[in-house]
């Protein structure tokens, strides 16, 4: 009976020694495992931070690139949009200018034309300060019954200079109007329809745009 009890006690001591050793061994392995995992996780995080820091130091360039993409697309769209609007306006204004040219051509065939031509000749004569003047017309207009005497009187009255108008033997290539020049000299006033339209084009275009588009 005593011998059995002693054996049991010894067995307990042996078991305890082995249990303690097992626990110590398990703890050692677990600690090593944890330490290894922590070390790898730390190393991984260190690498991630280094990569992020490097990328972030270049992120200003990335932001610039993103901004540049946006601005390039917008600038191109705005340029195209402006071009669309302006070309349409230009087209409309040119349409009106063409009609004005056609109107002037038709005017040359109307009853009002002689009066208009007379006014253009007088205006030119006045602008030249009167005197001895030559009036160059196109071939058709040179056959019109123009009262050059009355026109010269008006010029003389407005310029306070004795004036004389005579038709030039040279024809002008024009749809209407006249070129008025000093008989002795090179000074002239071009009052042909084409020249008038060209001179008035800048302000006429503004007028057209105002009327067309408000």
């Amino acid at each position: 009976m005593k011998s059995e009890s002693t054996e049991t006690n010894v067995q307990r001591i042996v078991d305890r020694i082995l249990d303690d050793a097992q626990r110590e061994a398990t703890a050692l392995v677990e600690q090593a495992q944890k330490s290894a995992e922590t070390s790898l996780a730390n190393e991984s995080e260190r690498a991630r931070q280094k990569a992020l820091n490097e990328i972030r130091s270049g992120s200003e360039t990335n932001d610039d690139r993103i901004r540049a993409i946006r601005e390039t697309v917008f600038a191109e769209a705005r340029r195209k949009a402006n071009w669309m609007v302006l070309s349409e306006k230009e087209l409309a204004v040119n349409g009106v200018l063409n009609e004005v040219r056609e109107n002037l051509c038709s005017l040359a065939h109307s009853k009002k034309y002689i009066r208009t031509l007379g006014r253009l000749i007088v205006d030119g004569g006045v602008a030249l300060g009167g005197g001895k003047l030559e009036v160059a017309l196109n071939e058709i207009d040179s056959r019109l019954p123009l009262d050059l005497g009355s026109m010269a009187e008006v010029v003389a009255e407005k310029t306070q200079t004795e004036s004389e108008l005579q038709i030039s033997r040279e024809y002008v290539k024009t749809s209407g109007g006249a070129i008025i020049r000093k008989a002795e000299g090179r000074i002239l006033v071009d009052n042909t329809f084409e020249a008038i339209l060209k001179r008035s084009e800048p302000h006429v275009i503004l007028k057209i745009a105002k009327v067309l588009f408000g």
Partner: protein
Amino acid sequence: MFRILKSIAEAENEAKRMVEKARALAEDMLQKSKEQSEKIYEETYWRTVSEEKERFKEEERRTLEAANYDARNILRKAEEQVKEIQAKAKQNLREAVEQASRESLQ
């Protein structure tokens, strides 16, 4: 008595072996983790760089998509303006021709 002491001594020896074995295993694990750490560092570094590059590419793609969408809106508005211009030009053509003709002969 001798048997008892022997049993205990054997148990202690066995315990010592167990702990030694565990210690060796632990050292081995730590050594392997040290060896792995450089590889892990490199892998994580390049993976992060690659992920960030991808993220940036995606941001670029989304920016471009959004900008194109806005650009289409700008062009749509321009098309509407063009239609308005055409309508106004048609409506005011006569008056513009008359005024311009008058103006140019003045």
